[in-house]
C-alpha cells in the first residue's frame, strides 16, 4: 500500500485512532467528561481530514475501498450526525449511573463501520462495514439496561439483523457462484446480459433478491419493517436518532453506489420489485403512524414512509436513465432526512430527563409544550413541518426533488402514492403540533432543557431553515460529488 493510498485513508485512520485513545483513557481513568471530549475532538479531527483527502482526488485503495467525493461526503454526513448524537448522549447519559463511557466507544466504532460502508466497492468491505456498524448497535440499543423495553428492543434487533445479514451473505454467495466476482466494478459486465443458461440467470436474480431483502431490512422498508417501531421505542432517544440516520444512511449510500456501479438499473425485475416496496412502504408507514400515541413510534412509522419516498428517487434513475438526477435527488432527500430526524429525536432526547421512568415519548408529555418550553416546541414544530415537506424547510427541498425525479421519469403511480402518503402524513404531524399548542393540562414533572442538547437542536433548526430557504450550496456540493462516481 503506497503512501498516497494511506493518505486518503486518513479519515478512517484518525477515527480508528480515536477509538484506541478512548479505550486507553477508559482503561486508565474513567471519566465521563473526558470520554465525551475525546470523542468529540476525534470526530472533529476526522471531519477536518475530509477536505484534505478530497483535494487528493478519487483513489482506489485495494480492491475493497474507493475514496472519492461520494464516499467522503456521506462519511462527512455520518460524522456530523455522530457529533450531534454524542452531544445529545452527553446530556442524556450524564446522570444515569456510573458506567457510561463505553457508549462512546460503541458510537465511534459504529461510525467507523458507516464510513467504510460509504467507501466500499466490494462485497467484502460491504460486509465488514455492515457488521461493524451492526454489532456496535446491538449494545448501544440496550445501553442503559434500565428497563426491559430496551433489552427487548436490542434482542429483537439482534435476531432480525442477524437473519438479514445471513440473507445478505447467502445472496452474495449466489452472486459470486454465478459471476465469480465480489467486485462492484466487475459485476457491471453482467448487467442486462442474460446468462447463457436460464437456470444461472435465475440464480443470479435470486442472489440479488436475497441481497436486496437484507438491505431492505436494514433500511426498514415494508415488508421488512416490523422491528422498527419497537426498536425506536425501546432504544434510548439518542440511539434512536442514530439508528434512524447513520445506520440507514450508510447502507443507503452503499446501495446507491452499488446500483450505480453495477448498472443495476438495467435489471427491470429489480426496479419493478423496488417500486412495489416503495408503494407499500409509503402507504403502510403513513397509515400505521396514524394509530400511534407514542411520538417515537410515530416517528418510526414516518421513517418507514420516508425511506419509501427515498426509494422513489432511487427508482427514478432506472426509467429514463437519469442516474445523475436519481443520485442527486436521493442525496438531497437523505441530507434533509438526516437533519430533520436528528432534530426530532434530539427534542425527544432533551425532553427525557433522568428522573423519568422512560423516555418522554408519550404524546401527553407534549401537551402545551409551546407555552411550557417554547424553544423545544418551536424546534419540534420546525422538524415536523420539515418531515411533512412544508416550504422554507429543507424537507420541502427534498420533497421537491422527489417530484422532479418522479415526474421526469413519469412514474405516475409512485407520484400519486407519494401525494396520498404526504396527505396522510400531514395528519399525524399536525396532530403532534396541535397537542403542543393546545393549552397545557395539569402536567407534569418538567425538567430544565439541558444546555448542550438545546444547542444541538437549535443549530439543526437553523441549518434546516437555512437550507430550506437557500439550498444552492447543498445542491452544488452534491452535484460535485456525483461527478466523482464511476
Amino acid at each position, binding site marked *: 500500500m503506497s503512501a498516497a493510498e494511506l493518505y486518503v485513508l486518513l479519515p478512517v485512520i484518525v477515527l480508528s485512532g480515536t477509538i484506541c485513545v478512548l479505550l486507553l483513557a477508559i482503561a486508565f481513568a474513567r471519566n465521563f467528561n473526558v470520554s465525551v471530549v475525546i470523542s468529540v475532538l476525534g470526530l472533529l479531527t476526522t471531519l477536518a481530514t475530509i477536505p484534505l483527502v478530497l483535494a487528493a482526488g478519487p483513489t482506489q485503495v485495494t480492491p475493497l475501498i474507493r475514496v472519492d467525493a461520494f464516499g467522503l461526503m456521506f462519511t462527512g454526513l455520518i460524522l456530523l450526525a455522530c457529533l450531534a448524537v454524542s452531544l445529545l448522549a452527553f446530556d442524556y447519559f450524564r446522570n444515569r449511573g456510573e458506567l457510561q463511557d463505553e457508549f462512546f466507544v460503541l458510537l465511534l466504532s459504529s461510525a467507523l463501520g458507516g464510513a467504510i460502508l460509504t467507501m466500499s466497492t466490494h462485497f467484502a468491505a460491504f460486509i465488514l462495514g455492515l457488521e461493524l456498524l451492526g454489532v456496535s448497535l446491538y449494545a448501544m440499543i440496550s445501553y442503559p439496561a434500565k428497563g426491559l423495553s430496551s433489552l427487548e428492543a436490542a434482542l429483537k434487533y439482534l435476531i432480525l439483523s442477524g437473519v438479514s445479514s445471513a440473507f445478505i451473505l447467502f445472496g452474495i454467495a449466489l452472486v459470486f457462484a454465478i459471476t465469480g466476482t465480489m467486485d462492484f466494478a466487475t459485476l457491471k459486465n453482467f448487467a442486462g446480459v442474460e446468462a447463457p443458461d436460464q437456470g444461472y440467470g435465475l440464480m443470479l436474480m435470486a442472489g440479488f433478491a436475497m441481497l436486496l431483502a437484507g438491505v431492505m431490512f436494514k433500511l426498514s422498508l415494508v415488508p421488512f419493517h416490523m422491528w422498527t417501531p419497537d426498536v425506536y421505542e425501546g432504544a434510548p432517544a439518542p440511539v434512536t436518532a442514530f439508528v434512524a440516520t447513520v445506520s440507514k444512511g450508510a447502507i443507503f449510500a452503499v446501495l446507491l453506489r452499488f446500483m450505480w456501479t453495477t448498472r443495476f438499473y438495467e435489471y427491470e425485475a429489480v426496479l419493478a420489485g423496488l417500486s412495489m416496496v416503495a408503494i407499500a412502504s409509503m402507504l403502510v408507514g403513513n397509515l400505521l403512524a396514524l394509530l400511534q400515541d407514542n411520538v417515537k413510534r410515530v416517528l418510526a412509522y414516518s421513517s418507514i414512509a420516508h425511506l419509501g419516498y427515498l426509494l422513489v428517487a432511487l427508482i427514478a434513475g432506472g426509467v429514463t436513465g437519469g442516474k445523475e438526477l436519481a443520485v442527486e435527488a436521493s442525496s438531497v432527500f437523505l441530507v434533509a432526512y438526516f437533519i430533520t430526524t436528528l432534530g426530532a429525536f434530539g427534542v425527544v432526547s432533551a425532553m427525557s430527563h433522568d428522573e423519568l421512568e422512560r423516555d418522554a415519548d408519550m404524546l401527553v408529555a407534549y401537551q402545551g409544550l409551546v407555552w411550557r418550553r417554547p424553544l423545544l416546541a418551536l424546534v419540534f414544530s420546525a422538524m415536523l413541518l420539515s418531515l411533512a415537506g412544508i416550504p422554507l424547510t429543507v424537507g420541502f427541498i427534498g420533497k421537491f426533488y422527489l417530484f422532479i425525479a418522479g*415526474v*421526469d421519469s413519469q412514474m405516475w403511480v409512485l407520484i400519486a402514492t407519494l401525494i396520498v402518503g404526504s*396527505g396522510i402524513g400531514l395528519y399525524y404531524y*399536525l396532530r403532534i403540533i396541535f397537542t403542543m399548542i393546545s393549552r397545557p393540562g395539569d402536567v407534569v414533572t418538567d425538567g430544565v432543557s439541558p444546555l448542550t442538547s438545546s444547542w444541538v437542536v437549535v443549530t439543526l433548526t437553523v441549518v434546516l431553515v437555512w437550507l430550506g430557504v437557500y439550498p444552492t450550496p447543498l445542491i*452544488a456540493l452534491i452535484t460535485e460529488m456525483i461527478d466523482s462516481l464511476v
Partner: protein
Amino acid sequence: MLLWATILVLLAGGAIAWLAEAWNKDLPRWVSVGSIVIAGLLMVPLFVSTPQTVLLADTESEWLAVSSSTWIPRFGITLLVGIDGLSLLMVALTLLLGVVAVASSWSEIDYRPGFFQFNLMWTLAGVVGVFVALDLFLFFLFWEVMLIPMYFLIAIWGHEERGYAAMKFFLFTQVSGLLMLVSIVALVLVHHSNSGVLTFNYFDLLGIPISEGVAFYLMLGFFIAFVVKLPGFPFHTWLPDAHTQAPTAASVLLAGILLKTGAYGLIRFTVPLFPGAAIEIAQFAMVLGVVGIIYGAILAFAQTDFKRLVAYSSVSHMGFVLLGVYAWNELTLQGSVMQMVAHGLSTAALFMLAGALQHRLHTRDMSKMGGLWQDMPRMGAIAMFFFVASLGMPGLGNFVGEFLVLLGAFKVNIVITVIASIGLISAAIYALIAMQKVFQGAPTAGRALNDLDTREVLVMVLMMLGLVGLGMYPQPVFDLVDPVLASLYEFSGAAEGTQGAWTGDGQ
C-alpha cells in the same frame, strides 16, 4: 425591491409583535397596525408610477414593478416578483383587510396576543407574496407558507371544534397544493424537453406548446388547487368548518383574502398557461360555479349558526367568481374581480359582526338572538347595510360584480346564466331571514349589551364607504385592472384562436 420590502416589513412586524408581548399586552396590536401601514405606504408609489412593458409570450403587457434575482440556479428558479393592476388591487385589499383583522382582534384576543399578531402578519405576508410571485416555485412556496400561520390562528384561538376545523383546512389545501406542484414540475419539464431550458419563470412558460392531452392533466392540477381554495362545489366542505371555528380576525382574513388567492390563481395562471385546456373544462367549471351559487344559498338558508350562514353565503358568492372566470370575456372578468373585492369587504364586515355578537352574547346560535336592534341600534343598522350589500343591492359593490358576471355570461351560456341569477333571489331570502332572526322581533328583557364602540364603528364605516364607492363609481377599479385582463384575455385568445373576439367596448 419595493415588493420584497413590503413583504419583509410584514414579516418583521410579525416578529416584533411577538417579542413585544413580553413588555406589554397591547403593544403587539400597535406594532401590527404600524407595519401594515408602512407596507401600505410602500405601495403608494405604485399607484402613480408608469407601467413598464414586459413581453408576455410575444404579447406586450404592462407591469408596475418587476424585480428578479437568482435563487436556485440548478433549476432556473429565481426570486421573480412583479406587480400589475390586478396584483396591486389584491395587495391593497389584503392590507386593508389586514388592518380590519387586527382591529377585530383588538378586544377579542387575550391569550398570547403577541403570537396571535405574529401569525396574522405572516399570513398577510404570505398572501401578498402569492399576489406578486411570478416564479412558479416562489408562488407555490408562498401558497403553502400562508397556510401554516392560518392553521395556528384557527387551532389555537378558534372555537370549540378548532382542532378538527384547522386540520381539515390544512389537509384540503395542502394536498390539492401538491397536485399543483406536480403540474408545475411537469410543465417546467415539458418546457425543458422542448427548449433545453430549465426555468420556473411565468413569462417563459406562457404559451409553450404542450400536447392537448398533457395540457389537460397539467391544467387539472392547477384547477383543483385553486378551486379548493376558492372554494368551488364540491371542494368547499372545509370552508364552513374553518370559517365558523376560526377567531374573528382569521375568519376575516380567510373570507376576505385567502379565498381570493384561488380566484387570482385561476385568472393569472390556470387559464393563461393552458388556454386550450381551459376551454375544454369551461362548461364544466361554469356548471360548478352555478351549482356553488345555488347550493351555497340553500345551505346558508338552512343554518342556525350565524358564522356558518355567512360561510355558506361565501360559497354562493364565490360561485359567481368561478362562473365569471370561465365565461372568460371582458365583462365577466371585470365582474369577477369586482366581486372579489366587494365580497372581501362585505364578508369581512359580516364576520366582524358575528365576532362582535359572539363576544357579547357568547353564542353564534341565531335562535338565541332576536330583537337586538333594540339593544344595539348602531350594530343593527350596520348589519342591515352589509346584509343588503351581500344580497346584491344596486348601488353597492357586490351588485356591480354579480351583474357584470351575469351580463357577460349571458353571451356565453343562457341556461347557466338564468339559473345563476336565481342565486340573487335566494341571497335576498337568506340575508333577510338572518336579519329578522337576529335583529328584529321582541328583545329579551333584562339584557344589558354594549353597542359597537367607536373603534368598531370606524372600521365598519371604512368598509361601508368602500362598498358604496365601488357601487357608485367602479371605474377606477376597472381602469386599474382592465389593461391586465385585456392582455391576459388577448393572450389566451390569441394562443388558441378559439376564443371570441375581444370586444374592447368598455362597459
